[in-house]
């Protein structure tokens, strides 16, 4: 008997228009000591599946099917009964450790609380001792002292360790992790995955990990289940899945992952289209509209999961067309770098000894300075026309501060910034305004970078009207921009919220291109997107650079993405550039210790 047995699990969210079926009949099992990964893009129903298992869906959600833990049915249990299962037999690790912890109790108390709820006869002091042991177990240094720390005093990685400590506190049989490393830096991610492995070895529990990151799957899981539109489309041991995927969607997902070994400029294989709406699924295979191999039979009946090899099932009738072919062949696209104008070698952006410090103050009535943080500490770099400079670093390394210093176009605290030959310190109001048109920005989060109450047309028209375009030219330019980034003309009169993440980012890029800039600052433009969408945006950025000779200042924490786009990289650590050079050289032969650590931490599918 397996540890967890899920049969025909369905989750439906009733809405006023149509019922949204987020999970449509999931069947899987998790064995003791096994790590099963559920992989899928946003909206595929993977989180709904996890929440249904532990009964944490909102009360209006309708759940049917069967979830058996050790042969005991969990579906239909009351909240009281489920509370005794949650935390005791099933441990949970959520995505955002900050909101998973209570801000007003210290972490030791929170772990002790988890222990005492499920083991009422455990004494206060014993629980406390056990909490410190658990903190030690998940790798927190000086556990005695850190147990008295509050969540905000810990770093993101440490917080996630505490959450893991709580999850394993009662020696659960099953640990469910919902995107446990998504909010963390790569080096921290690697550590957290190690902690999870340790946790599994110590408790002997089965692990169900929900993730969109195929690298994490490769690193951590034994078996993987690929989910699409609320159903499993392929299930296989991880090694088999990566080597012999049988389903076009899996092939597309793997093809769209940026890889460290690919040369600069390599186009990725995006999956065309967007995931279907779960409220109105087309007849037949839900992937058929995006599938390059779809035939008529695909559109009439939805294929069931069937065995294609030992331990390997796929829901596709065209598996013979998938195995043995590369994703680029299946999707019929070329991965060769786009042909573009060669760089003229002219330096468009020169930053010399840039310094930015933030003052630390203490006291309310009598503010006094107690020191300063050097967010950016004397960095220098150059960006050539038609080239991409990637600034890589983890959170807090000062890479975003650097970018915003450049974008502000005002004299920096220390050092100098020269944009297109103008020293920004010497600019007056008019000169600065003129230069704004040449230096534009694309932000990380397409949701917050677009005004939710402004239809797309006005979003794109804004930079134009602000710079004195008349109505007719605005209309013309907006239409042109929409087609440049691959959107339809009708999309102009819709609001940003009606678009998917990838489309929103396209709108963001279109807005940045509106004034025909020469330099584009990209602040993690793809890190908030799903892989298959991310691939499309990376391709778009490559094409635009080739077409318009744009220079990119590309800031990212994702080394594989930087590898695809950047000609030169600068690695930032604690406000300083620790290594700078041609991308190929830096990636192939890193000189700095930190660069090496960063590269080693990147999980590769």
């Amino acid at each position, binding site marked *: 008997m397996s540890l967890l047995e899920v049969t025909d699990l369905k989750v439906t*969210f*009733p809405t006023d*228009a149509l019922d949204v079926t987020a999970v449509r009949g999931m069947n899987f099992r998790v064995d003791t000591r096994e790590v099963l990964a559920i992989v899928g893009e946003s909206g595929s129903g993977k989180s709904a599946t996890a929440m249904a298992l532990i009964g944490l869906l909102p009360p209006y959600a309708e759940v049917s099917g069967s979830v058996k833990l050790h042969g005991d049915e969990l579906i239909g249990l009351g909240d009281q009964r489920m509370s005794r299962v949650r935390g005791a037999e099933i441990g949970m690790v959520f995505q955002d450790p900050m909101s998973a912890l209570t801000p007003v109790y210290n972490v030791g108390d929170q772990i002790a609380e988890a222990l005492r709820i499920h083991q009422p006869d455990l004494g206060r002091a014993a629980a406390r001792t056990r909490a410190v042991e658990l903190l030690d177990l998940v790798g927190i240094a000086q556990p005695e002292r850190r147990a008295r720390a509050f969540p905000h005093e810990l770093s993101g990685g440490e917080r996630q360790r505490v959450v893991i400590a709580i999850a394993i506190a009662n020696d659960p049989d099953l640990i469910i992790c919902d995107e446990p490393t998504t909010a963390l830096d790569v080096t921290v991610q690697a550590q957290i995955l190690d902690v999870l492995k340790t946790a599994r070895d110590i408790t002997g529990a089965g692990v169900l990990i929900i993730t969109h990151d195929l690298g994490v799957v490769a690193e951590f899981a034994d078996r993987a289940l690929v989910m699409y539109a609320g159903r499993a489309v392929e299930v296989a041991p991880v090694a088999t899945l990566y080597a012999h995927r049988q389903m076009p969607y899996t092939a597309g997902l793997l093809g769209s992952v940026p890889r460290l070994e690919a040369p600069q400029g390599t186009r990725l294989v995006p999956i065309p289209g967007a995931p279907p709406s779960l409220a109105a699924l087309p007849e037949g295979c839900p992937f058929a509209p995006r599938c390059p191999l779809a035939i008529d039979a695909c559109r009439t009946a939805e294929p069931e999961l069937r065995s294609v090899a030992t331990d390997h099932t796929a829901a596709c009738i065209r598996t013979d067309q998938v195995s043995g072919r590369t994703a680029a062949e299946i999707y019929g696209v070329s991965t060769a770098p786009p042909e573009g104008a060669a760089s003229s070698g002219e330096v468009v952006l020169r930053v010399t000894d840039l310094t930015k410090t933030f003052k630390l103050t203490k006291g309310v009535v009598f503010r006094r300075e107690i020191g300063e943080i050097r967010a950016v500490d004397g960095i220098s770099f150059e960006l050539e026309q038609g080239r991409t400079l990637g600034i890589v670093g983890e959170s807090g390394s000062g890479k975003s501060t650097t970018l915003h210093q450049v974008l502000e176009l005002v004299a920096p605290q220390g050092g100098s910034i020269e944009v297109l030959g103008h020293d920004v310190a010497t600019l007056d109001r008019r000169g600065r305004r003129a230069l704004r048109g040449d230096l534009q920005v694309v932000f990380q989060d397409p949701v917050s970078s677009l005004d*939710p*109450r402004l239809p797309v047309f*006005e979003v794109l028209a804004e930079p134009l009207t602000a710079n004195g375009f008349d109505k007719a030219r605005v209309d013309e330019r907006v239409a042109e921009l929409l087609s440049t980034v691959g959107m339809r003309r*009708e999309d102009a009169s819709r609001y940003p919220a009606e678009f998917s993440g990838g489309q929103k980012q396209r709108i963001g890029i279109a807005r940045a291109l509106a004034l025909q800039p020469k330099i584009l600052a990209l602040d993690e433009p793809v890190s908030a997107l799903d892989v298959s969408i991310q691939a499309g945006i990376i391709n778009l950025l490559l094409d635009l650079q080739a077409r318009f000779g744009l220079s990119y200042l590309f800031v990212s924490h994702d080394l594989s993405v930087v590898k695809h786009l950047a000609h030169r990289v600068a690695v930032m650590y604690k406000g300083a550039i620790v290594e700078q050079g041609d991308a190929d050289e830096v990636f192939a032969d890193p000189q700095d210790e930190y660069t090496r650590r960063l590269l080693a931490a990147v999980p590769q599918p």
Partner: protein
Amino acid sequence: MSEPVTTASASTAQSGLDVGGFASRRTLVRRRFLRNRLSVAALVLLALLFVGCYALPPLLPYNYTDLDYYALQQPPTLKHWFGTNALGQDLLAQTLRGMQKSLLIGVCVAFISTAIAATVGAVAGYFGGWRDRALMWVVDLLLVVPGFLLIAIVTPRLGQADRVPWLIVLFSVFGWMISSRIVRGLTMSLREREFVTAARYMGVNNYRIIARHVVPNVASILIIDTALNVGVAILAETGLSFLGFGIQPPDVSLGTLIADGTKSATTFPWVFLFPAGVLVTIVLCANLVGDGLRDAIDPDSRKPRRGKRK
């Protein structure tokens, strides 16, 4: 991650997809507002009330001061549609006369005070620094000044004709502080959002950013504030008149009519019901129009989820 996804068709229908030229925000908002039948009806009714209270009195056989000695304390008849009061005054004429003042005061005060609140709050929140400190100092000052007393002192010194405009000004000046604090708080969080930064980097000037990005994003609170202020202003005037400072007899306002009618609300209900009904209608319409406008401006608004609970 996997929250219920809305259907593409539903969301397309929401914004009114136009295949022709590019629709601006104004067109889209108007189209979405017009689709809300109830709000449009409320707006029409409000407009009719406004026009009616000025256009009807000259056509009526009775002036609001005329006394009909043959019909004292009469329930509604064909001759006196709303009935008469103890002096034999026609209640329809009186209600219309009262509406002229109350509607004017209500609507003007609501708009002016919300406009001040929006401007002060947005400017203080967006710019911060000395503007913020100065404006918030003014807010604090006005909050500790007993506005009602000040109005009570000022109004008796004014002639009957000046009272309505002065009441509007005074109520507006003392009615915006709390909302401007709220707007300031919302603006401060909006200022950190990337679309505001993006607009700044594109060379859009600050006041344009406030008008195009900040104000529409705090519009929900402003609209609710306006709609509620209509009722509050009318009631404030009632309170003032009741204490003998606002509108004084023989002139009437909705407030004085209701105050007079409450004494005999159970015995001669029409004396109370008609003016009170009109007041309720005005406030209800203002709120319905506000709701419709808020939904039209907010692209995320949907009809409430049907409450299906097990």
